């Protein structure tokens, strides 16, 4: 069964962290159709979080059709998230590796690379909105 963990420093809302962890497990195939998610009380007692938060995360997953709640029995996985674009990952990763090697060659450290990527993403977003 999936076990949730929380990163209180991440700035990501707790319910979203739960949603993301379920999705990640679905992508990785560690949970599959028919598997049961922990009950709200189990998660609450384990993580010391607000029951409303867990309920909200499960509702969100249900809204997206990933799980179904069965009255009195619990919440079960209803569909999986096999990534359709997985085939492109390898190629993209290869290109990224080459780019990173080029950045390395001109002396950019990890922090500078991250800063460059995030500022490029922001500029791209700004252009798209403008």
């Amino acid at each position, binding site marked *: 069964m999936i076990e949730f963990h929380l990163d209180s420093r991440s*700035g990501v809302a707790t319910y979203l962290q739960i949603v993301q962890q379920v999705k990640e497990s679905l992508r990785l195939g560690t949970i599959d159709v028919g598997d049961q998610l922990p009950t709200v009380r189990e998660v609450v007692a384990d993580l010391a979080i607000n029951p409303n938060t867990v309920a909200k995360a499960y509702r969100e997953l249900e809204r997206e059709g990933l799980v179904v709640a069965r009255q009195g029995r619990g919440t079960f996985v209803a569909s999986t998230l096999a990534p359709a674009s997985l085939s492109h990952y390898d190629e993209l990763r290869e290109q990224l590796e080459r780019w990173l090697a080029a950045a390395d060659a001109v002396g950019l450290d990890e922090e500078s690379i991250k800063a460059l990527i995030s*500022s490029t993403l922001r500029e791209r977003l700004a252009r798209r909105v403008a």
Partner: protein
Amino acid sequence: MTGPLVARGLGKRFRREWALRDCTLSIPAGGIVGLAGPNAAGKSTLLALATGLLAPTEGSIEVLGRDPLRRPELLADVGFVAQGAPLYRSFSVADTIEFARRTNPRWDDEIGAELLTRIDSRTKVGALSAGDRARVALALVLGKRPQLLLLDEPFAGLDPLAGREFLQLLMDGVAETSSTVVIASHVIADIERVCDHIVLLSGGQVRLEGNVEELLDSHRILMGPRRPLGTIRGVRQIVRERHSGRQLTLLVTADGAIVDPSWTVEHVGLEELLLAYMAPERLRTPQAPEKVPLRWHG
């Protein structure tokens, strides 16, 4: 306004000092509300008004739709743990539970029993550790199956492990009873894990109130080179402005996405947000020394 706890223009004065003033708020049913603020902000005063232990100097307070002073019977639906979890020290744990069983019209033995399994019921309350005393207090209030649960600084005196355990038991109890909970705490880290609604008091006034997610969603930290401030697209209001050297850091309320590439935009944590609203004047960043020479204002 309706809700389990509604205050309208509520104020309480002790001699010439206002402990609470102009307090208007309504907490949502089923919420877990963090009542935050520094010491002497008015948190305990608000809880004492909510339980009818104090009478308002002005304004009004309604708890579960009724006036706690005139309708004390509503307290059967309210669980209140005052600061330090005061209990009868000479009672044994069993006596304490028996007392609660006989004095509460609805008493749920199961909730209490679950919380107290690892405590010897013959122990005198005065001999319990702080963590176990907190457990007993929690068993007492949850056993009432209250609609509204008020806790004043429940983490004070608990070590981190006992604090986390208390929170787990509290949340488990709340999942069972569906109570609305108000947790007063001056340590934001203790409550940010659980609360979905915040009431921030400071100097006896409500500084910020709202749904935690919405508050975090509507605020952003902007960092960038220092410059004259014009309008920034996507920013509704600047809450706090701090500069150090050539760097400018803004806490703003956002109006949609902020896409200005000259700013680094970050989410704000609850603690930082509350500190900014708590005392903006106290948090001003020291100016660069060459700009503001030290002067003696004696």
